[in-house]
């Protein structure tokens, strides 16, 4: 019998391209580049699965992260997705909150967008060091809790946290603002050189602050003898 499909013998299968497919494809490509950059950072910085937050290690890690993130293009929403990738998948070998925070900070600092929102409420792990060296003109808003060393070494941007932040928040910051809607841990503003930290809830303890201001529930708690304008005792 004659092949009833003979007319289609030379037809080459070409499935219709759905726009969503190409979006996913390009997203996957970006995510793969971000992940590879993170892996590179880990290879260089975490040789023995231990990483200590020391002045030199942080600077070294950030320098490397800066170099890596400049090599590809990404968008603000890719940063949020990377946070969840870190938290949930086994594609990335290990999550170490320190280098991860440095890397995410570098991503934020070099993102094209001036305002970045990271919805991290569902993240199981609290990321440390987020907001490191946030430059002037950048605004990062985080929904969810953050870990230690949040906003350290800030250079003038604005970091908002709708949730809690842990110890050493704002340590070594030079300028800019940190707003935390809930509570904040110990050593807040350690070696802080300038800028302001606003805390909506409670500050468990202040660090050794050089300069700058810390507010708790709209009241200045550092410097203690600071007199607000139009407030008379």
């Amino acid at each position, binding site marked *: 019998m004659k092949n*009833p*499909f*003979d*007319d*289609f013998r030379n*037809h080459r*299968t070409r*499935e*219709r391209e759905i726009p969503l497919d190409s979006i996913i494809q390009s997203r996957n490509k970006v995510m793969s580049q971000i992940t590879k950059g993170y892996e590179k950072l880990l290879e260089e910085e975490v040789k023995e699965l231990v990483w200590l937050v020391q002045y030199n290690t942080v600077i070294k890690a950030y320098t490397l992260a800066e170099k890596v993130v400049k090599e590809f293009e990404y968008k603000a929403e890719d940063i949020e997705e990377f946070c969840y990738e870190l938290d949930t998948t086994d594609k990335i070998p290990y999550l170490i909150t320190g280098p991860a925070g440095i890397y995410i900070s570098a991503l934020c600092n070099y993102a094209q967008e001036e305002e970045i929102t990271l919805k991290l409420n569902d993240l199981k792990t609290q990321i440390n060091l987020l907001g490191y060296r946030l430059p002037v003109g950048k605004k990062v808003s985080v929904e969810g809790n953050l870990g230690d060393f949040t906003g350290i070494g800030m250079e003038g941007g604005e970091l908002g946290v709708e949730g809690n932040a842990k110890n050493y928040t704002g340590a070594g910051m030079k300028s800019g603002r940190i707003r935390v809607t809930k509570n904040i841990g110990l050593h807040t503003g350690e070696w802080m050189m300038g800028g302001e930290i606003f805390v909506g809830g409670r500050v468990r303890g202040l660090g050794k602050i050089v300069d700058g201001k810390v507010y708790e529930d709209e009241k200045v708690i550092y410097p203690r003898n600071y007199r607000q304008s139009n407030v008379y005792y």
Partner: protein
Amino acid sequence: MTQDHYREKIRGIHDFIKENLYFNRPDLEIKGEKFNSALIFSLLTGLNKGKELIIGEPGLGKTTSAEYVGSLLYRIPIAIIWGAEVSGHPEQTEEKIIGRPDLGKLNKGTEEVVWSHFAQIPVKIVDEINRLPETKQSMILDGVDRGNWEYLNEMIINEEYCLFATANYQDRGTNTIIAPMIDRFDVVIESRHPGPNIAYLVGKFNEKDRILRNSKAENSIHKILKSKLSYQTKLRQMEEVCDDYGEFLKKKLGIETVGLRDRKAIHAAISRLELDLDANAFTRMLLAELSFCYKYGQKRSIENCEEGCHFTGYLCHDTTNCASNRLPTSIKTYSQALAWMIGDTVVGVEHIKAIMPYTLAHRIQWREEYLSNKERNKRDNPFQIYLAKDAVKSIFNRYGEQSEHLKSALAVGYRLFKGEDLEPVDGDHPVYFEIKRDLGLED
């Protein structure tokens, strides 16, 4: 002569009829070009050796449009076409339609048939076919289908012929057209009212019928048809007169027509036009919906489609009968002719989509519930054509969603049929099940 020259001549005939003989509004747009469906389909019928049923209110040009097209396309003087027309009425007989015994010779003991003009000339018009009683419609089935006309022990075969039948809407004097007869028509079209302004022009020019008359040619052809020559000889002699009539048309009306050899060349060129893969797959999809039944293997008019079947969203649920094998032939040949007429080198989905409703409208029998749901919808076409257009539109939407998938399924079907070890392509449409059935892979 090239196909472009032939096309120019046919377009010339179309434009001449449009401008001088059959005034109507364009109601069909194909690839940006507007046509009047009755006129363009009649031309395609003539070129294609097809069969067309023309419906419409009395006096709206059903018969005359066919007469004009037949006369100009086949170079037959219009009076010969009038004389050969069969009119449908209850007293019609085989002797008047096909042929009768030569009574003079019969008296001498010799059986010889005097063939009717209707049986002999290539342009056949049956006026008001639905006034023929059902039993008498059967008499012309074979002749209509194959061009074989039999009487007593004699037979003539029309090598080239086309058929136009007109039908009024149902009234007390009409009968239904029997199913085997209706299926033999390739297309159904409506000769519509042209609107008051164009209708006013129709009344203004009442000399239209005279311009295609030529007494000399009429008498010559009449003599040939009446003569006792063999049918082949008659055709040869008639062609010579028709050529002269063609010259007359050229001189008197400035219109160039085509002869037998030209028509053969045109028909051959039309037949050579290939359907592209989309047109091919789309047609298969339509045929699948009109013939598929998951439960009973195929559509049968004696079996009911029950509620709850997975395929209730497809046409197989809304129809009661099965598509005949004449349907794909009608779709293909008319689409080819349309593509040729427009000047395209391949038959695409646009041509198929334009042709399909007119090939389906008279062939589909719809379920009563479906008809009740649709009958009060706003529309611009007779109900049957409206339903067919609606059906084609919905199938085309489905095809648009899965054209690549279907073509892949058919390509994989080709390789499976050849014996390759592959998985057939699945899909949610009857056509994918039919592919599996062809491959013997149905669950």
